[in-house]
Structures are given as structure tokens and as C-alpha cells.
């Protein structure tokens, strides 16, 4: 007897029995009140925020809108030759993803880091450098507290593949429980491009070069995961490029408000404000030439005032995140202060951001 025979026979089980099983199955998806649930979360949302923030880094560092001359030259101390992409540095060693627990109380969620992670988590909460976070000081049930506890982007990507239902859940609770009235949260919400032929819409993430391949990252409509689709040829990539990079504004429901472009020798920054479903977005497309190949990266920032669906003004964006570069030895550390996480050059390299830093 083959598995398929049993599988097909199971398809004919009584609906009542299946419903009973589903009921039990769904219990595994529900976080219980006041019960500590150990969850390994892949923070793809944070990852995307970082990548998006990096795109906008030159912009944030200068006045808005950016002028050609305002795009900073790469620091000579960043990405020195001994750590070039050609010779992967030792910090590619796997890190341990920090486990943390989700506490649910009185309708809110809290993150709690277990003892094992207390001394290893570094949080750049003040923007003045990494602090060792002592989870024992966390006011468990008094305040809402957000931390993004991941140690390695490479580990995140690995986990993302293995356990990708988590980002959906994580994104959901961030969106639904953490924002307070007046909060402004940068969502990892990318160009909300509707693909007419599919029942679901997709959000465009970023595309980048990886070795010999062109990769494009697409976030699904419901935050379940990001997809890293790699194309073996420029032609194959070009089809997607047309759809997502050239003709994106023709997608249903998008109304362009304004577009402006800044250009240097090897980098073009195209910033577009647009409306979609009553919300205002700012889309930043970066096109850069790397070793004769063109690389495009896109970040889209929803101007969403959480707690309401009213669009907010252009002045929001600089307040949402604060980025600055601090020289530290031979590398530059970038602190993403709003989200309580310092992004190290190691993580940048692991994520393939080195092109930005060289």
C-alpha cells in the first residue's frame, strides 16, 4: 500500500472528525492568556525595516529632500579589504537566535527574555551605543515594551525559511497591540502592489545581487514570509523587473502624488509619494551600479498613523527612525534606535549590505 492511497482515503474522512481535529490543531496556534509561551521568532519585519532604513540612511543623514551632494561618500573605515565579500569574514559563524517569551496580559502582549538570553541581548535603546539589557528589569505587566531580539541576520534568514509562520504572527501582534495612540511605527510594509491574476496581493520587497543571481524578495500579502526568488538570468529577472520596478505604478489603485529623483555617478534615488487605499506611502527606489551590473532596491514607507487610518504628513518620516553611524574600530556600527536594536556591520555584511558600505 502506498502513502498516496492512505492519503486519499484520509481525504474521505467524516467532516465531523476532521472538524474535531482542526479544533485541536487550532489550539496550538492560540497563545494562552497569562501563559508563557516560548517562541522562536524570526523578525523578518525588523530585517526589512533595517534594509529599508539603510536605503534611506543617506536621506536621513541630510535634509529632506536629498540633494545629490547630500548622499554621503562611503566611509573609508567601513568594510576594509580584509573583510571584503570575496573572503567571508569569521563573523559568519552562526549566532544563537535568542528565544524569548510572549506574555499576554490584559489584552496586551509583552516580550520577556528568558534568563539565558538576558546577558546576551544588546539593545541600543538610547542611541548612544549598545547596552546590555537585563530582562529582570522588564516591567512585565506594567508597560508595553518592544525589543527585537535577534543576534544574526543569517540566522534569521535560516529560521525564516524553516519556521515562516512566525513572522505573520509577530507582525500581527506588533500591529495590533504595541502601537499606542500617537505612536508612529515604521511598518515593514512594502509597495502594496496588487497582482491582478492572483487572489492575493503581494508587496514588493527588495531585489539584490547575490553571487551570479538576481534575487527579488516579495512579501506576501499577509506577512507570512518573504520570498527570495532567484533568477538565473538577467532575462528572467527582467520580466519581474518590468512588472515590479517599471510598471509598478500602473497597478490597480495606486495614485502617484509626486516623484523626484537624485543621482550620483553610480546611484539613483527615486522617491515617489503615492496613495493606495486611502493611505499615503513613500516609495524609495535605489538603483546602483555594482561591477557593471545594476542593482535595484526598494523600500516603501507607509505614512500610517497607527491608531487611526488617517494618512499623515511628510514630516513623519524623519521622526520614525533615527539612524546614525558611529565609527568603531575598522567598522561602522549603525544603530537603529527607535527599534531598540543596534545593527552591527557583521549583520550588515551577513545580509549583503556591504555594497552600501564600500
Amino acid at each position, binding site marked *: 500500500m502506498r502513502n498516496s492511497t*492512505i492519503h486519499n482515503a484520509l481525504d474521505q474522512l467524516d*467532516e465531523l472528525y476532521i472538524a474535531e*481535529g*482542526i479544533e485541536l490543531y487550532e489550539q*496550538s496556534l492560540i497563545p494562552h492568556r497569562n501563559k508563557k509561551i516560548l517562541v522562536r521568532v524570526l523578525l523578518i519585519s525588523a530585517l526589512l525595516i533595517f534594509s529599508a532604513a539603510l536605503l534611506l540612511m543617506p536621506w536621513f543623514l541630510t535634509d529632506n529632500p536629498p540633494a545629490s551632494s547630500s548622499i554621503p561618500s562611503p566611509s573609508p573605515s567601513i568594510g576594509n579589504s580584509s573583510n571584503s565579500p570575496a573572503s567571508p569574514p569569521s563573523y559568519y559563524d552562526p549566532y544563537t537566535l535568542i528565544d524569548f517569551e510572549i506574555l499576554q496580559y490584559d489584552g496586551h502582549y509583552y516580550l520577556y527574555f528568558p534568563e539565558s538570553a538576558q546577558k546576551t541581548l544588546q539593545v541600543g535603546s538610547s542611541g548612544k551605543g549598545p547596552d546590555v539589557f537585563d530582562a529582570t528589569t522588564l516591567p512585565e505587566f506594567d508597560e508595553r515594551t518592544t525589543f527585537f531580539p535577534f543576534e544574526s541576520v543569517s540566522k534569521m534568514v535560516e529560521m525564516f525559511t524553516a519556521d515562516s*509562520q512566525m513572522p505573520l504572527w509577530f507582525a*500581527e501582534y506588533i500591529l495590533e497591540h504595541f502601537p499606542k495612540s500617537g505612536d508612529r511605527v515604521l511598518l515593514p510594509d512594502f509597495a502594496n502592489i496588487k497582482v491582478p491574476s492572483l*487572489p492575493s496581493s503581494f508587496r514588493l520587497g527588495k531585489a539584490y545581487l547575490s553571487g551570479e543571481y538576481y534575487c527579488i524578495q516579495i512579501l*506576501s500579502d499577509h506577512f*507570512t514570509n518573504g520570498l527570495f526568488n532567484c533568477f538565473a538570468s538577467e532575462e528572467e529577472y527582467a520580466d519581474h523587473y518590468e512588472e515590479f520596478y517599471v510598471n509598478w505604478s500602473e497597478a490597480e489603485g495606486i495614485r502617484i502624488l509626486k516623484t523626484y529623483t537624485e543621482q550620483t555617478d553610480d546611484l539613483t534615488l527615486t522617491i515617489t509619494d503615492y496613495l493606495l487605499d486611502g493611505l499615503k506611502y513613500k516609495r524609495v527606489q535605489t538603483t546602483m551600479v555594482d561591477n557593471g551590473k545594476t542593482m535595484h532596491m526598494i523600500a516603501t514607507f507607509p505614512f500610517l498613523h497607527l491608531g487611526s487610518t488617517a494618512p499623515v504628513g511628510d514630516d513623519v518620516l524623519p521622526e520614525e527612525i533615527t539612524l546614525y553611524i558611529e565609527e568603531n574600530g575598522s567598522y561602522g556600527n549603525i544603530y537603529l534606535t527607535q527599534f531598540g536594536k543596534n545593527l552591527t556591520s557583521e549583520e550588515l555584511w551577513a545580509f549583503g549590505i556591504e555594497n552600501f558600505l564600500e
Partner: protein
Amino acid sequence: MKHTEHGTVVLEDEQIIELFLKRSPDAIEETQRKYARYLFSVAKNMLESAEDCEECINDTYLALWQSIPPHHPHSFKVYVTSLLRRHATNIYRKQTRQKRIPTELIRSLSELEYAVSDSTFGDDKGSQKQLAAALNDFLGSLPKEERALFVCRYYLGQSVEDLAHTLHVSTHVIYRRLNKQRTKLKDFLSKEGYTL
């Protein structure tokens, strides 16, 4: 309408079915809102990559859109799950032409195969139907909790670890219960005359 554990307002299943019947574009959105996480979780038991899971779920949404109407499912949840299983199977079969990746569902089916391996069922459709009837009879003889466990493991492909977590017991306990079920099933099939 009702609230989820996250506070999201979701429609009742019957309301979602009504949206499908009215050909409302909101039908898919509401299905996603309510079931996206569940569907992805089940798909992940059956498929290896996140990309395949996404494809499978999108196929499922499309199938819902195409089949309701005229179909009016008695249980929307069961129906959407059965569609998901069907599409997951198709994708899995496509994959396995290139390489075989044992998913949790395949592992669970292999366990179950042991229980029915000595039976007289063949691989034809008639045998599948006969086996389905036998399985339904067998499940009918089990207490509700055991039935649910059986469905979670063998129909939804839930991992032993997840089951243990859900039921707040050790994996050892789950293994023991499942093993007991398989032995019972073997005996049941033998008593009912399905064994050579």
C-alpha cells in the same frame, strides 16, 4: 463577527461563505484574515518551502473562489482544509519528481502505512473508498480526544512536538498514544476482515 485572540474582528464562516456566494472580492480577504495563519501552518506540515506554502495557499483561495458557488460547504473550515490538502499534494508530487523531501505529513503517513500494510486494500479508487470507510468506522470507535489526535497527526500532518505542546504532555506520551492508535487500527482492520 467575532474577535480573535489578537483582537482582530473576523467574520463567521457562514458570513464568509455568503461573500463568496455574492462574488464579493472581500471573500478572499476575509478568508485570509481569518485563516491565513492556520492555512500556512497546515501547509508547512505538508510542504517543505515557504514559497510552496504560499503557492499552495493562493491556489486554495483561487479554488475557493472558483468552487463557491455553486458549492456551499457545510463546514467552511473543513472545506478549505481539504482544498489546501489537495493543492499541497499536487505541489508535493510536482516536487518529488525532482527530489524527495520527507515532510511531516509524509512521515505521519509512513507511520500509518505500517498499521494498514497487511490489509487487503489495494491502490485503486475502490480500495481507497473502502479504506476510508474503515477509517471512519475506526475513528467512530475512538473517544473524541483520540479522534482529534488522529486527525491532527495523519490528516493535518501536525508534528508530535506540536501536539505535545498543545496537549501539555511530553512527546513520549504522544508517541505512545499514536502507537496505541495504530495498533488498535491494525486490530480493527483484522477483526473487520480487512487483513489477509
